[in-house]
């Protein structure tokens, strides 16, 4: 970099000193600004003729796909049969679930719950399903369940073998890891677009998208579990002449089973996380209910469907978590603790049989709970009575945070200055490599023809993250200090983490109307639990010796926090900031749907109006922004150690 040449001639091997580096970066920034004053035609807007033309290429390709769908062998012999197969499979499961008497489904869940965890789990699971039925959503629940089952099954069938391969081969791991990383930062929308292109609109693209979305944890946790098997066990197996396959089957897989089961649990949760998004491309079920209700602003209906999703999520989470807790090395003590008894399952089966005889197949309508109406009333009341809070809040965020910041990034600062500024941040937190990478990323935003949308989105992301951090850190610190706060927070955070992101939007829109603010508030709600949790964890994990020593020297509580716990927890807190930024980025598209403008809006347009080119460009830009911000915050977090 040019910035270094100032110091190099004098002291060839010494690193340029800090003032020098700052001075040279400032000089570069000033230079960029000067350039933009001198050549306004070039720097006013990102030059349109530099555009890479990706959009046109993608659109051309998508036209080709549309016109060749029936004739091209790749569709006739690959995508169509695959599509038909998946569709038939989903239908089969769906019909089975819908064909069965509702009591049978609840009974089976209850027995599973009893076998895996005991009567509490059993009761909880059956009540959960019962609630879904009582909200009049039995059919939709079963549809969602069918889609989930198939998607999770495929995700596991693909993910677990990939995870094994990753664990056994470092080379394979090196190849797959960046792909998994990319899959996890990529908003689901981005690959929904090509998936729709290839599979059309219906259940199948929903399954495919869900599978793609849910695979990474299955791969990661399988691989991690196998790699973390005690080396001593593997060595002993080797010493007794086991083949590689024998080691895998008799030692590594059994010992990695808890981790693999945790992967199963994560996979299920991920899959449930995009139920609503999947509905946008034609999956029915609960997701569609939320999506439709959201479009019609029927808060009560959306609330019910959202609640059903949360209930299913909790039931599946607890069931699969109980499954992962079955530790093969602990079996006998469990058996000793609770002798296998068939009384409870028999009782449940008997009750089920009674219900089957007494009630018809459809879930009894007279048990309707009718939550929608009171919720609607509540929301109406809040809207009519709380506007004196919501309006000023919304105005404040828009007028004093969002607008000035967006104007600065998008309109006032010429694009070369932005590029240099971001590169400079990269340079200071890490070095010239990151600076170069960030600069190239920033250029890409322009080359893809999305400069101003990207800057709009960047401003929203930064403002949202700032709000989230400001709220999350104090709460996290508080939770680390007081077990009461922690206990109160826990269910709230649990709830926020399992609610599908769309469900946040409903009340937020009701209160704040459409625009950028509801998107921001939904994103804050989405990102804040992780921020609070990681902050709290970071502080709680500060070595007890250091805390004890500080106490022994008579530190006050405040001194303890400020002088010992916070400094020592800095790396963890920095990491939590990184996570919050990534989660806010994951919400960009959803924010775009409710008037967030920027890249999110472009992505939504791309998906809903089949403007594939725009959608893909916008998606890529989101990924690029995510990568830049991720690398920069990661490097910054690493410096805190």
């Amino acid at each position, binding site marked *: 970099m040019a910035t270094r040449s100032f110091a190099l001639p004098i002291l060839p091997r010494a690193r340029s000193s800090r003032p020098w580096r700052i001075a040279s970066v400032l000089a570069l920034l000033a230079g960029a600004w000067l350039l933009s004053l001198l050549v306004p035609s070039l720097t006013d807007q990102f030059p349109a003729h530099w555009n890479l033309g990706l959009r046109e290429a993608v659109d051309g390709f998508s036209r080709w796909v549309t016109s060749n769908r029936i004739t091209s062998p790749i569709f006739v012999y690959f995508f169509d049969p695959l599509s038909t197969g998946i569709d038939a499979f989903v239908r089969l499961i769906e019909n089975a679930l819908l064909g069965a008497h509702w009591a049978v489904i609840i009974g089976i869940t209850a027995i599973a719950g009893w076998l895996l965890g005991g009567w509490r789990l059993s009761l909880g699971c059956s009540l959960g399903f019962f609630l879904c039925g009582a909200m009049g959503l039995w059919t939709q629940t079963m549809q969602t369940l069918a889609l989930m089952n198939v998607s999770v099954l495929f995700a596991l069938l693909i993910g677990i073998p990939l995870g094994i391969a990753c664990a056994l081969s470092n080379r394979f791991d090196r190849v797959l890891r960046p792909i998994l990383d990319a899959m996890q930062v990529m908003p689901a929308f981005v690959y929904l677009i090509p998936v729709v292109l290839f599979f059309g609109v219906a259940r199948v693209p929903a399954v495919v998208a869900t599978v793609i979305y849910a695979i990474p944890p299955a791969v990661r946790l399988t691989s991690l579990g196998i790699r973390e098997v*005690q080396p001593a066990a593997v*060595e*002993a197996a*080797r*010493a*007794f*002449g086991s*083949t590689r396959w024998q080691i895998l089957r008799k030692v590594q897989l059994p010992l990695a089973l808890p981790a693999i089961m945790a992967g199963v649990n994560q996979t299920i949760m991920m899959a449930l996380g995009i139920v609503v998004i999947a509905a946008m491309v034609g999956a029915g079920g609960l997701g569609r209910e939320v999506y439709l209700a959201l479009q019609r602003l029927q808060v009560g209906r959306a609330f019910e469907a959202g609640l059903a999703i949360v209930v299913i999520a909790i039931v599946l989470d607890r069931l699969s978590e109980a499954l992962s807790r079955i530790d093969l090395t602990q079996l006998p003590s469990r058996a000793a603790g609770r002798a296998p008894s068939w009384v409870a399952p028999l009782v449940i089966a008997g009750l089920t049989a009674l219900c089957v005889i007494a009630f018809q197949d459809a879930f009894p309508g007279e048990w309707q709970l009718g939550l929608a109406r009171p919720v609607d009333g509540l929301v109406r009341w809040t809207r009519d009575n709380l506007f004196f809070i919501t309006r000023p809040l919304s105005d404040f965020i828009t007028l004093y945070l969002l607008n000035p910041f967006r104007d600065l990034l998008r309109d006032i600062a010429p694009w070369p200055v932005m590029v240099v500024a971001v590169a400079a941040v990269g340079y200071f937190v890490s070095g010239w490599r990151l600076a170069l990478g960030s600069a190239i990323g920033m250029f890409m935003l322009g080359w893809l023809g999305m400069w101003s949308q990207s800057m709009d989105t960047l401003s929203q992301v930064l403002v949202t993250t700032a709000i989230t951090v400001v709220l999350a850190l104090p709460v996290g610190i508080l939770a680390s200090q007081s077990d009461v706060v922690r206990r109160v927070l826990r269910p709230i955070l649990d709830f926020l983490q399992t609610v599908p992101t769309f469900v946040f939007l409903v009340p937020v829109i009701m209160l704040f109307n459409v625009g950028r603010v509801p998107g921001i508030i939904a994103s804050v709600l989405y990102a804040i639990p992780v921020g609070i949790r990681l902050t709290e964890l970071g502080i709680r994990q500060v070595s007890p010796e250091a805390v004890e020593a500080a106490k022994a020297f008579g530190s006050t509580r405040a001194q303890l926090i400020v002088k010992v716990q916070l400094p020592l927890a800095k790396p963890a807190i920095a990491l939590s900031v990184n996570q919050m930024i990534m989660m806010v980025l994951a919400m960009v598209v959803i924010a775009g749907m409710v008037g967030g403008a920027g890249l999110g809006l472009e992505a939504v347009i791309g998906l809903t109006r089949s403007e594939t080119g725009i959608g893909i460009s916008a998606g890529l830009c989101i990924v690029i922004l995510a990568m830049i911000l991720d690398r920069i915050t990661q490097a910054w977090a690493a410096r805190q150690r």
Partner: protein
Amino acid sequence: MLICTDIWKIFGPTPEKAHAALAFQVAADKLSYPDHVVAVRGVSFEVKKGETFVVMGLSGSGKSTLVRCLTRLTEPTAGQILIEGQDVRRMNDEALRNLRRHKVSMVFQNFGLLPHRRVLDNVAYGLEVCGVDRRTRNDRAAQMIELVGLKGWESKYPRQLSGGMQQRVGLARALAVNPDILLFDEPFSALDPLIRREMQDELLRLQSTLHKTSVFITHDFPEALKIGDRIAIMKDGQFVQVGTPQELVLRPRDDYVRAFVKDAPRAKVLTAGAIMSRDLRGRAPNGRTVPSHAPLQALLPMLAEHDAPLTVLDGGTPAGVVDRAAVIRALVEEDVARATGA
């Protein structure tokens, strides 16, 4: 039975280059090579059938690496390993697997048990991987479990057992495949002193009937003296001295060995034959005789009883005499060889 010649193990990016430089070229006298760890440096030894060969050295001296090189759990950088005349380093995967399955078994410091298997299935593991059918292997495993005194614990899981019992399982597992050679990598180091002594006695008891050829690694010199027929003292990847316990105690090669020998239980290690005077003239015709391999502690009661010297018999014929003074000198002097001029 087991012959090792000039074994090297170097960890690092280019071990062959490092080996060439350290072993043959100008740097041959150098101890280290940049960016590499020389764990084993040109070690040679031979273990005879039925013999227990102990490798004693401090932590980090390369013992674990050496013993893992023998069956190529760690691939040696250079050297030759012959087991019953077969060159281990030339074996293909299949032959190597068969060696590990049938000929050589290992007992580990941290037990290396499989936590998800019951004791019985752990002991049967070696048989299972060679494809022995369930009934046969379970019978054999049950026998081994009884042999190490764990009858009744077959269907427990390892974590339900104490450390000493876990290592009994490790021992049973190694014996189950009826190997010709047993390798022990500090098998008792993780145990409490009392349990450790109990396990040492257990091993000696088993060895007195089984006579397995063994390589036994330890960092505990008293343990080496107790278990070993011959002992190699290892330091920085090399053998400093190899000999019987008595040879080490009587003639430590340098100060390093002397430091270990200093606190050796001389009364147990030294024998009548080693300290006797060959001058038979002072021999008392009183019929008080001892065999030459008797440890000094066996002589003490007899000498306490009566002042007259004892006649040492070697193969039934008188070979020398020991008197009180000689025994006392041998017990207190650090370097008997120096004192007696032998």
